[in-house]
């Protein structure tokens, strides 16, 4: 199909189930290639912690199959369905790797990129190629498969992916510290990550975001909540949570959320239920150094009303801002540029995404390599033209 496109010089938008279509710059072309019919798990060896699937396989199907063997994807991919005004659980496994947006467990387990072992893909020259394989350790040739993660279908269309899976933890417990201001919350979270107790994730919901939790009791507290999750063997939980509470005692006594409540709050973060879709707001995703995060949010909040979620102990900020003509772009970019990191406009009206930079603007030397890479894979600009950067 891409060969036909290449022959006719007809560019196309590349989608799985289209759950991430609202992210990135809008694509003018009316032609869409979907991987939705490339479906099915092609290899699953639970004792080797490896699975392969065709790229259009729904994530929900993959997670169900893994769960049947007591396993899961360690990186807990974000589900932007609800925040984009669509249903939850709609994305494909190809989209998961093409977008590389891992969820809360990223901080301990690595991202989508860290779990990809191999891929087959078709580039803009209509060449089917493979990279990597099905084994955990592989340095044979350049790491092209991993290099395709986060490229949003602009370099190649993934046809099959092979990835590492992990056992589900036996038990989960979340410590929730109420009422911490953002800077103290980040201090507490980084302190937790600096203990040897294998914290699986650490997130902070300021008051406004905490009020939107699905768990009514927690939402009704009317305070910020700083959440620290332990996932391990059942017999380890009591000992570890005790030591952790001792290490963090200056931040007060936490609430203990058991398995069900814990599942509910982390699912709210993973699905961004605390940042529901609204035409009146836009959504940014900011990746930074944890201790810089409160300053970034404070700097932006001087100019506009915001709601924030701090994940990855502060290293990832989801920031809801009013739906202005530039989605607050100038202020967001300035606040991030001064403190390090990068920002992506995740949700805004198409005309906004058309006029402002959606992905972090590049330095000239990186832009030169980016253009070179695009030309190497897709010289005719067939695949998702302009999705990440204008003219690319």
């Amino acid at each position, binding site marked *: 199909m891409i060969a036909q496109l290449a022959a006719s010089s007809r560019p196309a938008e590349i989608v799985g189930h289209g759950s991430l279509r609202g992210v990135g710059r809008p694509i003018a072309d009316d032609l869409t290639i979907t991987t939705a019919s490339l479906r099915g798990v092609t290899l699953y060896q639970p004792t*080797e912690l490896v699975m392969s699937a065709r790229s259009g396989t729904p994530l929900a199907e993959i997670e169900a199959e893994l769960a049947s063997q007591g396993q899961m994807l360690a990186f807990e991919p974000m589900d932007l369905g609800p925040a984009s005004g669509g249903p939850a659980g709609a994305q494909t496994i190809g989209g998961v790797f093409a977008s590389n947006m*891992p969820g809360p467990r990223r901080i301990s387990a690595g991202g989508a990129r*860290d779990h990809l072992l191999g891929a087959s893909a078709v580039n803009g020259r209509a060449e089917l*190629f493979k990279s990597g394989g099905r084994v955990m*350790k592989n340095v044979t*040739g350049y790491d*092209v498969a991993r290099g395709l993660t*986060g490229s949003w279908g602009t370099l190649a269309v993934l046809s099959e992916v092979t990835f590492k899976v992990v056992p589900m933890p036996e038990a989960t417990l979340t410590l929730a510290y109420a009422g911490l201001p953002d800077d103290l919350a980040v201090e507490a979270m980084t302190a937790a990550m600096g203990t040897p107790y294998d914290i699986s994730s650490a997130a902070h919901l300021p008051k406004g975001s905490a009020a939107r939790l699905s768990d009514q009791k927690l939402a009704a507290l009317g305070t910020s909540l700083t959440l620290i999750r332990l996932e391990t063997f059942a017999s380890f939980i009591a000992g570890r949570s005790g030591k952790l509470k001792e290490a963090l005692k200056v931040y007060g006594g936490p609430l203990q959320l058991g398995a069900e409540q814990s599942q509910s709050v982390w699912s709210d973060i993973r699905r961004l239920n605390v940042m529901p879709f609204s035409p009146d707001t836009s959504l940014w995703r900011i990746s930074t150094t944890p201790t810089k995060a409160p300053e970034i949010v404070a700097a932006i909040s001087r100019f506009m009303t915001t709601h924030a979620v701090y994940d*990855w102990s502060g290293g990832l900020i989801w920031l809801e801002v009013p739906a202005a003509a530039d989605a607050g772009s100038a202020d967001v970019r300035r606040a991030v540029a001064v403190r390090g990191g990068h920002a992506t406009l995740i949700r805004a009206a198409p005309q906004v995404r058309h006029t402002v930079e959606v992905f972090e603007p590049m330095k000239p030397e990186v832009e030169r*390599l980016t253009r070179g890479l695009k030309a190497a894979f897709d010289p005719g600009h067939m695949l998702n033209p302009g999705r990440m950067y204008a003219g690319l």
Partner: protein
Amino acid sequence: MSFVSLLEPDAGVVARRALIVEGLSKIIGPEALVIDEDGRRAFETDALTAYRRVPLVVVLPRTTEEVSRVLRYCHDNGLKVVPRGAGTSLCGGALPGEDTVVVCVSKMNRVLELDYVNRTARVEAGITNLAISGKVAAQNFFYAPDPSSQLACTLAGNLAMNSGGAHCLKYGVTTNNVLGLKMVLIDGTVVEFGGTHLEPAGYDFLSLVIGSEGQFGIVTEATVRILKKAEGARPMMVGFSSPEAAGQCVAGIIGAGIIPVAIEYMDKPAIQVCEAYAHAGYPLDAEALLIIEVEGSPSEIEMLLARITEIAAKFEPKSIEVSSDEDQSAKIWAGRKAAFGAIGRIADYYCMDGTIPLGQLPMVLGRISEICTGYGLKVANIFHAGDGNLHPLILYNANDPDEASKAESAGADILKLCVEAGGCLTGEHGVGIEKRDLMTVQFSPTDLAVQMRIKTVFDPDWLLNPGKVFPLEVSAAARQAA
């Protein structure tokens, strides 16, 4: 051994040597150059010692700015460049040519910034792997990837090869532990990828650069993740009467939801040699030995080892022994980590580095034994069982050219077998020149063309680390177009 053909040196460049030395001396100072033949001879090979070429000149820059000036000079004068760290590559990754400028970053070994709160360290790339952990040890932090050569090897080399180690089952390999890089391109441009945040912006250049075997640029600085050490760790040893039983035991442990920090496998010849060397108490009657290490608090360790013991008991082990104290733990690991050295005491060896799916282990070990017997050679096998990385050590006499050539042939047959079994040519050592000509076994011409185009984006003239990774006939067109 001299199977692999090397690029012919450019006679014109060799003839201009004096002029080139003078040019480099002007831009970086004579004290940063190694010019005399004895000095240069120290850089003629790496840990794949069968191949040796004395380089044109060696440069030892101290700053990114100096690397930039040197590379710009080489670029402008069409000179080939071989980047080098400590020269511990097992695949000829740092092998120079008579017409190449070696740029060795070992003088750039400072720690620039330690941030325990955000758990990152910014270091110069010439620092040794173990020195990073050493600098943060007082705070009980460490840098996770632990290749066996960690005392000597540089982070620069680890980045080039995407090095692993015995403990990567839990902590990942180099690419999973690096957040940012500063790299000098061949035209002298300094470029930065990533930073101190967890996910890079734009295309994932970190993934492409790490493991590119020094062919994209010279990395001068890196920001790596440092992690808090576990409260404690303890290994246990389980001896089995067959490789099948040991393989099934590994599958049983992982199937039960336990991911130890390390699961190391040794076959009988490896057990015998290592025990004679280290007196670690390895079971000499076993056909296969697993060393399994877990981490946690004392009570957690006890619980995990008890569970593993229960699982291992199902596979009729010949012996099960849990390390009783720190001293015994150190001995158990000393034996394993010294395996290559111990085997080197009884014979020369040729170390392979394929990876295979765990389920194929008994088949692959059986075939390896057949292959080596077919060439009249002995073999010992060390295996990172948790991640499938297999190190067969083919024993031979390096002074016997016929035996050396047989060892290289047996090695090639073994790597082909690994690919056939669903694995790959190299799990952590890299391709270099050693496995270069086998790349077509694993990759189609299109797969290789896709990789070579990326090389051309970074290094349009193909000057960096030439003649490695791609078979010469496969890269000929791309090199000539350069």
